């Protein structure tokens, strides 16, 4: 187990700079998720941690040791690839035992450790099979087995669940989380799926275009997004944004959208006449028969909750309702907003006010 320090890391491919001074501190035993849209540099950062990509500038240290020039095998890390990267010509046993064999461990030790890992991952009946004879979930577990037999200081996961179907993804999510709780090893996990990030992480690092946008616990990011990007990226369904300005009405600050919709705002530092982006999460819009009227456009019932898309004046509002509602497209509903749930961002800088 070890802490990981990423300090001012820069990555350049010839003249193109793709990573612009990234700083991340990862505590010993922490489960950290790097999340962001594709092309944001999260996988590159992970590969730099693994030693598969060179670091152009800055330092990466694992367990207090700077590893910039240390080759992958000497970094004491294990990695699980999105493709699982199993050796197609080796059996499950040989796949899992490969790192131990390379470390010149005696056969008896290899057998013992592989058998133990296989039991943990429920692979014991598959040890003689070849990767092509396994299902996606089983392959995924073999890749994890190969990682855990090494007992590394840090686990690196590169979108390990994205090739699985939705149901299996949920199962494996729980298994990985459980594994982390049992082993207590530091984990750095890359995903583009913000639900995975929210459910698994102790700490989330949101990235965009080779920069860190915000680092924090899942609920911290959900409650206090630093900017419009994080606010829109974290949370599902994603936050409603309305552009407008802060105005004063009856001596109270209100939000007035560009199209004239008036909404309540919390007491904060927003200046009168400041151009802002108004953010409200769908689940924080209380739909009922009092408040601001809106006209239903689409209703998406999922059983446990109902998503309502409605026009409030000219603005399209997305609301998530816990109860089942019988609204039809075209019918009228009302909604209320608790100012405490509102997020205000400066329209120019997109930063939280």
């Amino acid at each position, binding site marked *: 187990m070890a802490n990981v320090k990423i300090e001012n890391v820069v990555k350049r491919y010839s003249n193109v700079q793709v990573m612009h001074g990234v700083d991340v501190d990862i505590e010993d035993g922490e489960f950290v998720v790097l999340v962001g849209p594709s092309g944001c540099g999260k996988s590159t950062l992970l590969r730099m941690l*693994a030693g*598969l990509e060179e670091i152009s500038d800055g330092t990466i240290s694992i367990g207090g040791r700077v590893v910039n020039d240390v080759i992958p095998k000497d970094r004491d890390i294990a990695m699980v*690839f999105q493709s*699982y990267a199993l*050796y197609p010509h080796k059996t499950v046993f040989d796949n899992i035992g490969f790192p131990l064999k*390379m*470390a010149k461990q005696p056969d008896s030790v290899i057998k013992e450790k592989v058998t133990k890992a296989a039991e943990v991952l429920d692979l014991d009946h598959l040890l003689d099979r070849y990767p092509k004879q396994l299902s996606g979930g089983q392959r995924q577990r073999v890749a994890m087995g190969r990682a855990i037999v090494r007992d590394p200081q840090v686990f690196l996961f590169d979108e390990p669940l994205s090739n699985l179907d939705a149901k299996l993804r949920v199962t494996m999510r729980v298994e990985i989380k459980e594994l982390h709780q049992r082993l207590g090893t530091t984990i750095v996990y890359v995903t583009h799926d913000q639900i995975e990030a929210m459910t698994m992480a102790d700490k989330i690092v949101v990235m965009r275009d080779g920069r860190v946008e915000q680092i924090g616990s899942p609920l911290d990011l959900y409650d206090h997004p630093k900017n419009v990007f994080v606010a829109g990226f974290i949370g599902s369904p994603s936050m409603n944004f309305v552009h407008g300005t802060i105005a004063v009405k009856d001596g109270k600050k209100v939000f007035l959208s560009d199209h004239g919709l008036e909404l309540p705002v919390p007491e904060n530092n927003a200046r009168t006449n400041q151009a802002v982006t108004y953010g409200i999460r769908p689940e924080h819009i209380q739909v009922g028969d009092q408040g601001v009227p809106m006209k239903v456009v689409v209703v998406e019932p999922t059983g446990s909750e109902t998503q309502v898309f409605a026009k409030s004046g000219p603005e399209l509002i997305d609301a998530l309702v816990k109860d089942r509602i019988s609204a039809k497209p075209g019918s009228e509903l009302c909604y209320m907003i608790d100012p405490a749930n509102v997020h205000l961002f400066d329209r120019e800088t997109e930063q939280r006010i």
Partner: protein
Amino acid sequence: MRSNKLGWILLAPTLLILFFFGVLPFVYVVFVSFHQWNPFAASPEMIFNGADNFRRIVFDSAFLNSLGVTVAFVLFAVISEVIIGYMLAQAFMREFPGKAFFRTIHTLPLIMAPIIVGSVWKLMTTPSIGIIPHYLDKWFGISMNIGTSAPAAFFTIVVMDIWHWTPLVTLTLIAALVSLPRDPFEQAQIDGANKRQIFWHITLPMIAPALIATVFIRLMDALRTVDEVWMLTGGGPGSSTRFLGVHIFKEVFPKTNYGYGSTISVIVLYLTIVVCWLLYVSMLAPRNNRKG
């Protein structure tokens, strides 16, 4: 049913050609191999002599000599071609200035007819006019004469074959290497394998099917090499480079001994099949069995 019939109709031309130019001549050669037949001799009749030809072959020292020389040649040539071909393929996997040019140049020997290769190498190796003996003498003080020295003749043929056929190995191995996924190699680096271990544990097993196919092709080709050798040494000096192909050629054409020549051909074919089968069984079959 209709599509089945159409399938046979579409296949018919190929099957007919295969039958007339492949199966029929083969059956005929097998048939002739059980006969004594010298169509240009005083008695040109085909006389059935049972397994006499096959019995004769076992005690035929000229044939056994040819067999030995051929096996030595195949071992030297094919092993060198595979090793050099693999190294070249790995080199061509990297980026370097002029790569496209070198890759084109390096495949040029492949498009030359064996008979041309033989005559060019004859020019290059003939004492007094050849460039190779000239510089060997000038730089190293070695006198080389493939007309009188058996080892010189033998190894010149080996080198010529390597020069001619290594590009084939390189090309197939490049194709195999390019199609390999990248992740297992990165995974192996993380798993603690060094370059040598990655080669033995990952690269080699993953390109094995392509490698074995290439070895098969080269093996079968090398076992029936005739033209280059015929042009370069004519099987000499003595019988030191009288490979099986050359031996059969000499038996059939100058001696017009069609019956016995056919017998040797059948035996060579049989040996080729046995060698390839052994290779296949030893290298591929264990994996397939374990998979089952």
